[in-house]
């Protein structure tokens, strides 16, 4: 300490303290960063996506190139994951499988986002009898085992990539509709919704501008958790022969082919199954992490 410490400061030199704005996003990201498992999940999902998009472009084989001389080859520098019974490179097929499985996960959950949010939003906002009837329909659909429902749809639609998107999309929106409706019901009682009405805002405007942005957290979480569900259902459908058709390969198709030669060539089962498991784990970790990060209940504790 010296005399200099006590000299007056020129007011012009005092810089006001800037407090960076805290949006839900930035707060959520800070919570996410502390959750190692969620970061691992995020990493897996990002890497899988990159692999699915660019992986097939950098290999020298294609997913339907057959080479009977090399049939059932064990993993080697030439074929990293080995080959299947028709001599097709397993690595490329797993990479293509990633493309198909991830695109199914994404497309199915986007369709269910769209249907679920609109259906649940209308039910919650209109309320009364409309809400009761709409939710009873959901209850009835809920009572049908989903897998059975999807299988029946696939039998009607004939197997194919586009049809899987549609079948999964129209089967799995129930959860989303319920969650959105519940959120809307509780938001309806909020003062700011009444306030918005008191300024003459229309009902549609209130739903899209005031309510849906406020239930983004639960929507994102449900969405993230519905992606692995869709992937898994597709794998199961392919496994029982109702999924994508040959020579295209999803992870379910590859696993199903690998099962046939499980004893003699276990690698044909292990690689696609491992890819499926890792991706599923990645999405689950990410979904759980997002739930913790975006849950407003969690945020109250010392986070303002």
């Amino acid at each position: 300490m010296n005399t200099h410490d006590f000299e007056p400061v020129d007011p012009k030199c005092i810089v006001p303290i800037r407090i960076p704005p805290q949006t839900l996003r930035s707060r959520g990201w800070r919570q996410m960063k502390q959750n190692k498992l969620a970061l691992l999940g995020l990493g897996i999902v990002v890497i899988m996506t990159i692999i699915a998009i660019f992986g097939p472009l950098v290999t020298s084989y294609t997913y339907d190139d057959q080479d009977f001389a090399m049939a059932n080859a064990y993993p080697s520098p030439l074929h990293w994951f080995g080959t299947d019974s028709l001599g097709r490179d397993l690595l490329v097929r797993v990479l293509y499988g990633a493309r198909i499985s991830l695109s199914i996960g994404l497309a199915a959950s986007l369709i269910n986002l769209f249907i679920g949010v609109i259906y649940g939003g209308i039910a919650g906002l209109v309320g009364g009898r409309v809400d009761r009837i709409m939710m009873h329909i959901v209850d009835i659909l809920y009572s049908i085992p989903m897998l059975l429902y999807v299988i029946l749809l696939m039998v009607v639609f004939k197997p194919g990539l586009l049809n899987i998107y549609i079948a999964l999309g129209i089967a799995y929106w129930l959860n989303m509709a319920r969650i959105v409706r519940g959120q809307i019901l509780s938001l309806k009682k909020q003062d700011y919704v009444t306030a918005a009405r008191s300024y003459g805002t229309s009902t549609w405007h209130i739903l899209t501008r005031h309510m849906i942005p406020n239930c983004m957290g639960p929507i994102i979480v449900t969405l993230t958790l519905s992606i692995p569900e869709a992937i898994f259902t597709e794998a199961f459908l392919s496994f029982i022969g109702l999924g994508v058709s040959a020579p295209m390969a999803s992870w379910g198709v590859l696993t199903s082919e690998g099962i046939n030669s499980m004893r003699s060539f276990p690698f044909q089962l292990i690689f696609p199954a491992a890819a499926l498991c890792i991706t599923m784990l990645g999405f689950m970790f990410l979904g759980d992490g997002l739930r913790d990060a975006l849950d407003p209940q969690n945020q109250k504790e010392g986070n303002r």
Partner: protein
Amino acid sequence: MKTVLDIQNLSISFRTYRGVLEAIHHVSIVVNKGETIGIVGESGCGKSVTAHAVMKLLPKETVIYSPDCKIMWEGTNIVPFTEQEMNALRGQDMSMVFQDPMTALNPVLTIGNQICEGLVLHRRISQQQAKYEAEELLRAVGITAPEKRLRQYPHELSGGMRQRSLIAMALACSPQLLFADEPTTALDVTTEAQVLYLLRSLQQKLGMAIVLISHNLGVIAQMCRRVYVMYAGCVVESGMVEDIFDKPAHPYTKGLLASLPDPEHKDKPLQGISGQAPDLFHLPDGCRFYPRCRQTMQICMRQAPPCYDVGNGHQAACWLLCPERGNDNDIT
């Protein structure tokens, strides 16, 4: 003086799980252009319900307007209005400042977004123009650095600033009537004074009428020209603010005034009104106040009192004022 709002015989009921509940009963209130009227009463006496009922903000599924009631807005009965017709009125002609600034702002939209919403909706102006006007509004309600606040979210502002933003939102389209539903209850006293002063100066500038709802008698005395006192869903006394405070006629009003703490007589114990406001499902027969009244008479337990004129537009619903009662009309 021109009448803006004339509420006649308004009774509002709600369908609840326990049956139909009448929240307000035969309420008549007149609001003239440019004046401030106050509505006072205990919590749950129907103050806010009255305001919400006029703006038709109560939940449509459960609310029942009694068939004989009329809400005359500049000569037109708005009770049968549809939601679309009300939307044109709300924000544009009548507006509301809410009680709790912490919950009345949408947490995920910026202040600017929320103010511009009403402007764009009613005035059909461009986003750019709306932004400019929103900035002016924020400046008018005394918010510093408005261009910065426009981009901020509600949680970044203090309580007083949020209440000011809410006022700015309510005033966006210069309404003729502003309902201020306990606008200062959530604020500390210095901010309260600022907000009330702001309301009054804006009223003088814009010439709008204000309906100030409060349970704070001091605030009412400061701000209002006329006062309505409500108890258990009924207006029990109404009149000019001086009359109500200087010569209250209804025992309930007397009780309210007596229960104000007196800083000059600290040793005097605080006086409340004994008992509790009645459960609206089990209202007493006759006068709704008699179980808590100190001057209950036989007739009070049988029959509800009509409104008696005490002079100068001062009215009270109490049997004590009945001319047939005899000449011991000493009001104590």
